[in-house]
């Protein structure tokens, strides 16, 4: 413990304090194992000086402010309507595209904003604070559709499948889940067989976000059943396309402005050049994509949580009961405090995961922690926000009920909270392996 504390003090530029219980093995003063030192080193030397967690770089602050202004002025006023009428925010997506928000990480030569993942996380959070559905569209396009193509595509594929999707004119989607398997992604029953110069795809994908509004999809199908999850490959399919049809739009609890439906493939033919990455690497591509996607969803959850907190805190000032604004009552104060702590801690986890990714350091555990913490913070804040508003929280006049409904999905998609716990435990146990 003392050794670790000394190590900490010697490093300059650390702007926050890690609770000693993190270094549990060092409690008894025994020598620190090499893996743990590595984990520590990651924490201490970090990528950027972690004091930047206290204050973001100027460019990121400006970017955050721009997105916040956009969300306040253009999304906030229409979010209720988008939700009620299940309307896809096409106009807003185009405007966000013009701002560069639909392709934050994409290099400028391909039409993107050329910024880092921390900037992307901030953008998604602010957009989601205005409208959870729009935040979802932004996140799916950036992380799930563009993400894998940017990482695994050929230059030609990038130009063909990324550039038109940076402007907001077109959005993409990600088709991994099937009616028969969600968390069990290795059991993909969608099949792809080669016939001459074409791949022929057959099967059904379920719960595909953006499906009805997308112009292309990254889709996963089994090319070699005997190889189990090493026999899955990724493909790029334009939409609409012969052989690809959409199921009916799901009637969802929340994020209702996005379209979610089945993708049905019946002898859907695509050129051989439409395979993304090497044959059999589909599962790896999916898992790596979801790793980064988690940071996007964590950011979306943060935005929704923050919106719920904003709503409750504002109400606490205005609503009077027993002769005073309810903000004076401890019962309300404790709720607001708990909400604020939940949001802020999830936010720091999210920023850390993003910064680790930007520094090209391993970030799987941190991304899973961020998504878990943020999604649970979102549902917690959504719930408590309604409680603070009382009866007003239950009706559509106030946005609290929408935040409650929008928050729920963040604990489910892109890896359920249960899966996140498995991922975290897996990484943790590896660190402690004897």
């Amino acid at each position, binding site marked *: 413990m003392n050794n670790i504390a000394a190590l900490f003090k010697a490093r300059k530029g650390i702007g926050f304090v890690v609770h000693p219980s993190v270094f549990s093995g060092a409690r008894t003063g025994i020598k620190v194992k090499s893996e743990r030192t590595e984990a520590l080193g990651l924490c201490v030397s970090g990528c950027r000086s972690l004091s930047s967690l206290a204050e973001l770089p100027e460019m990121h602050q*400006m970017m955050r*402010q721009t997105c916040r202004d956009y969300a306040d002025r253009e999304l906030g006023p229409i979010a209720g309507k988008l939700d009620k009428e299940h309307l896809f925010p096409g106009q807003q997506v185009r*405007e966000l595209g013009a701002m560069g928000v639909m392709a934050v990480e994409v290099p400028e030569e391909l039409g993107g*904003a050329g910024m880092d993942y921390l900037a992307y996380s901030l953008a998604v959070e602010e957009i989601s604070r205005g409208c959870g559905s729009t935040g979802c569209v932004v996140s799916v396009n950036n992380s799930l559709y563009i993400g894998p193509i940017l990482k695994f595509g050929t230059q030609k594929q990038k130009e063909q499948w990324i550039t038109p999707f940076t402007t907001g004119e077109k959005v993409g989607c990600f088709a991994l889940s099937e009616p028969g398997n969600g968390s069990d992604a290795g059991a993909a029953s969608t099949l792809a067989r080669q016939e001459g110069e074409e791949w022929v795809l057959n099967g059904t994908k379920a719960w595909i976000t953006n499906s009805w509004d997308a112009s292309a999809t990254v889709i996963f199908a089994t090319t070699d059943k005997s190889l189990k999850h090493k026999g899955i490959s990724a493909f790029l399919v334009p939409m609409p396309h012969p052989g690809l049809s959409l199921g009916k739009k799901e009637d969802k609890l929340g994020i209702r402005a996005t379209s979610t439906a089945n993708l049905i493939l019946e002898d859907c033919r695509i050129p051989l050049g439409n395979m993304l990455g090497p044959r059999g690497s589909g599962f790896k591509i999916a898992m790596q994509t979801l790793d980064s996607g988690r940071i996007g969803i964590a950011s979306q959850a943060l935005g929704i949580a923050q919106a719920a907190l904003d709503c409750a805190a504002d109400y606490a000032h205005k609503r009077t009961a027993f002769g005073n604004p309810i903000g004076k009552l401890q019962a309300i104060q404790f709720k607001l405090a708990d909400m604020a702590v939940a949001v802020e801690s999830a936010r720091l986890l999210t920023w850390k995961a993003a910064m680790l990714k930007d520094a090209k350091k391993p970030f799987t555990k941190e991304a899973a922690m961020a998504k878990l913490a943020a999604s649970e913070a979102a549902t917690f804040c959504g719930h408590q926000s309604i409680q603070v508003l009382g009866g007003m929280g239950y009706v559509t006049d106030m946005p609290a009920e929408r935040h409650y409904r929008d928050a729920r999905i963040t604990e489910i998609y892109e890896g359920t909270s249960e899966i996140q716990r498995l991922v975290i435990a897996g990484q943790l146990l590896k660190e402690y392996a004897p």
Partner: protein
Amino acid sequence: ENTKIRVKPDHSGVVTDGVKHSMNPFCEIAVEEAVKLKEKKLIKEVVAVSCGPTQVTETIRTALAMGCDRGIHVEVSGKDYEAMGPLQISKIFAALAKKEEASLIILGKQAIDDDCNQTGQMTAALLDWPQGTFASEVTIDGEKVKVVREIDGGLETIKISMPAVLTADLRLNTPRYATLPNIMKAKKKKIANMKPADLGVDMVSRVEVLRVDEPPTRLAGVKVETVDDLVAKLRANGTI
């Protein structure tokens, strides 16, 4: 944007500590107009200028992110800043306009904190330049500028020679959101720093603020049934 304004306990002004400052909305419109003129290739370079303490550079950065080429920060802080008003600012702008050989100065018609609506007009007077104020439409035509002005009676169209001063009114344009790539580019653009003394401007104010008070709380109104009742009530409280 939705900060509550509070008067300082000593009534010398409003509380500005900890209040987030952002670009004056009419100045945003002015910046947008300048950037649009540059995009139409009617002007060569847009320089964003602001006078004030260090925080002002954030606002200049925002202007750069909207498309201005470079910035100038005229540093004014402390007592000088508290006493700074349209006269001092217009002297600074006039000096800079001469130094930079500007052909157009575009500013917001008024600042929403003091609502003075004087800086543009004073700057033009100091430079002896024509002015097109309350502009809702600006068209450059060779060496002249056609300005449609919003006046109480409607719209007035004037044609003035450059160099000129223009002040932007609400309907001139809708300011753009800075795009992410432009925010990145703004980081590399230069902001020059100088003091009023470097421009030979004295910051002594000719105006002294005696007292600042909040507006009186609005009292509830009274509804009356007939005109006779109204007249009677107005007589009773001494209004007529």
